[in-house]
């Protein structure tokens, strides 16, 4: 028995490649959930109703301080006791999505905080409603600069999807494991899984880096223009 069999590699590759679509769709759906939930958490954290803010902070800290694998087990194996039975895929997407939403919320928060206070005041002075202040004025300025950071979390979540194999989602790693246990050859399937992760995440990382450079350059240009306007501390 050779250590590496090319015949077996070519045989097993299409099977794992097919499973990649499960990995990708889980990543996309979970990240969409993380982004939407993240924005909600970030906005609610600025509420003037303190108990709500404390609840959100506590919950976020709790979620970030516990391993995602434990959370996935909880969602998949424990929620049925409370009458909520989810398919492995749905449980996985919710588990990862909620876990990453707490990180996304932090990134949104940094974006929101970098919008000058004057923008809030101008939006108030023009009598925009509370929701419109967010949707028309603050978020359109807060989000573009943080897109690269969100992108980094997207890649990092993508690389976390093998965790889903633990709750029986048949994604790439699980497929490789099944193939391995059938043929007693694990080297080729796991290598293929690693290779596919690399091929997808490395170019994405480069793309995000490029975007970051581009955004920084634009920010610098804007700053250069703005510095012409004399900066005067607001008085009372």
């Amino acid at each position, binding site marked *: 028995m050779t250590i590496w069999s090319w015949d077996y590699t070519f045989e097993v590759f299409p099977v794992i490649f097919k499973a990649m679509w499960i990995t990708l769709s889980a990543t996309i759906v979970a990240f969409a959930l993380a982004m939407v939930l993240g924005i909600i958490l970030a906005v609610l954290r600025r509420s003037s109703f303190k108990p709500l803010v404390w609840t959100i902070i506590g919950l976020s800290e709790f979620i970030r301080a516990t391993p995602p694998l434990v959370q996935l087990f909880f969602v998949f194996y424990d929620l049925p006791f409370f009458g909520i039975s989810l398919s492995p895929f749905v449980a996985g997407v919710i588990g990862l999505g909620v876990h990453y939403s707490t990180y996304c919320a932090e990134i949104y928060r940094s974006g929101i905080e970098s919008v*000058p206070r004057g*923008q809030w005041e*101008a939006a108030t*002075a023009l*009598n*925009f409603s509370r929701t*419109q202040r967010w949707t*028309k004025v603050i978020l359109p300025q807060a989000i573009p600069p943080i897109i690269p950071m969100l992108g980094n979390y997207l890649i990092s979540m993508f690389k976390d999807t093998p965790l889903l194999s633990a709750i029986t989602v048949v994604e790439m790693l699980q497929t490789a494991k099944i193939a391995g246990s059938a043929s007693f050859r694990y080297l080729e399937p796991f290598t293929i899984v690693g290779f596919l992760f690399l091929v997808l995440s490395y170019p994405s990382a480069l793309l995000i880096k490029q975007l970051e450079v581009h955004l920084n350059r634009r920010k610098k240009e804007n700053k250069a223009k703005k510095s012409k*306007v004399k*900066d005067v501390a607001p008085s009372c």
Partner: protein
Amino acid sequence: MLTTMSKEITEKRIQTEKPFVVYKKVSKSFGDLKVLREIDFSVYPGEKVAIIGPSGSGKTTLIRLLMTLEEPTSGVIEIDGVPLWHKEVKGKLIKADEKHLHKMRGQIGMVFQQFNLFPHMTVLRNCTEAQVKVLGVNRKDAEDRAKEMLEKVGLGTKLDNYPSQLSGGQQQRVAIARALVMRPKVMLFDEPTSALDPELVGEVLDVIREIAAEGDMAMILVTHEMEFAKDVADRIVFTDGGKIIEEGSPKEVFENPKSERLQSFLRRMRK
């Protein structure tokens, strides 16, 4: 003088009409710092009031309360007889909710020291967005009105530019147009030229002068430009240490200041 006639008209009004904005014993503190101390102050319909005074005398805070950017610590502000920060329920004044503030705010407009244009919108969009989303004007009419006002401030050719492509003076003029399109009854100016390079101050003051001469809208101007205040205002209010120390016609205040504090302030400003 351009404004003499409108001043006479306003003076007549003041004798006959009720004040539009009234401050009753309004105080504001930030922590231990008392910025305003029991201010009584009113503005009549169409009246132009300039607020002068040393930095930290509370003049900016005074107008920020009216724009609902700061909440008064105590006292009542009324717009057209209706409390701004309070609602009357069974004869008692309780704290107003956002819905009430939203209703009241429509009567006030504001121009800021730092312009605060929306950087992600073109000049035209800056002047149409609130008309469409807040007033419910259709986009075509909103654009017509925005173009008219931008023409008035001399920026009819910059519609598609972004704020970062404009000079400070141009940005401030867009900000004035953006406030005007909303048809406020009272317009607040918070040191509109303090953040500008000296050579750009004139163009902004000229635009404000022109708007003031048109009459209808009341204006409260917080400014350090004494000559400008003298020209434009029907009444000058001098604040120091969170109180109104002296007020009167520009002539009275500038030529015959009564209080020691105003006298020394004017001496310092003339240097």
